[in-house]
């Protein structure tokens, strides 16, 4: 168990088995080891353990976009070392939308192998999905 002191999260107790490794990193983010912590309801934190100031809000897309889906390529499945779909969790990041709302980046989901603790962020070719899809009330 590692304890990290952070202004934002107070004391974070991290079990080493919780650490998710992103072999290709996350574009724009200079770290590749993260943890996921529950925030409220479906919303979770994705926190860089090497600098806890670097954190995103993520959510399962299916919560707000029930028809969301994509096909996982063999290449990505092999990077994730996924034996079955059950090992995988999908998240999308949350973004501010027009000052008042919240949007999700449906174009680039995070796929996490929750068993093997490997993560990738992919970009979907699917034109239906945008980098900023408003979550409607």
């Amino acid at each position, binding site marked *: 168990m590692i304890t990290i002191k952070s202004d934002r999260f107070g004391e974070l107790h991290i079990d080493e088995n919780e650490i998710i490794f992103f*072999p*290709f990193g*996350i*574009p*724009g*983010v200079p770290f590749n080891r993260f943890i996921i912590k529950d*925030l*409220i*309801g*479906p*919303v979770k*934190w994705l926190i860089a353990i090497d600098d806890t100031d*670097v*954190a*995103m*809000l993520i*959510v399962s897309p299916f*919560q*707000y*976009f*029930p*028809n*969301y889906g994509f096909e996982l390529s*063999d*290449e990505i499945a*092999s*990077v994730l070392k996924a034996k079955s779909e059950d090992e995988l969790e999908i998240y999308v*990041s*949350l*973004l*501010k939308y027009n000052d008042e*709302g*919240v949007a999700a*980046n*449906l*174009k*680039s989901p995070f796929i996490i192998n929750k068993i093997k603790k490997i993560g990738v*962020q992919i*970009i979907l070719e699917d034109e*239906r*999905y945008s*980098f*900023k*899809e*408003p*979550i*409607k*009330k």
Partner: protein
Amino acid sequence: MLILTRKTGQSIRIGEDIIIKIVDVDGSQVKVGIEAPKGIIILREELYEKLKESNIEALKTAKELKIDDLIKKTKASSSNSEAKNPIESHNTGE
């Protein structure tokens, strides 16, 4: 930047295992075929840049967004988040 001239059907090899082939040229459009080992991510540059911007924005959002606001906006609460979806479902299908 190294600049090479190639004809349709010709290739460029980068290192041991990456081959870039000019498949077709039509006016200003060039169709490129890429052979690379598994585990190498190949992306259109402009998409990669957009993703980078989006991720930086997500970090900013997480800093600026007040948690109370977030609860209001996502209407997320541990009691009803699973059972019923309080947010109008958004059909991205059509």
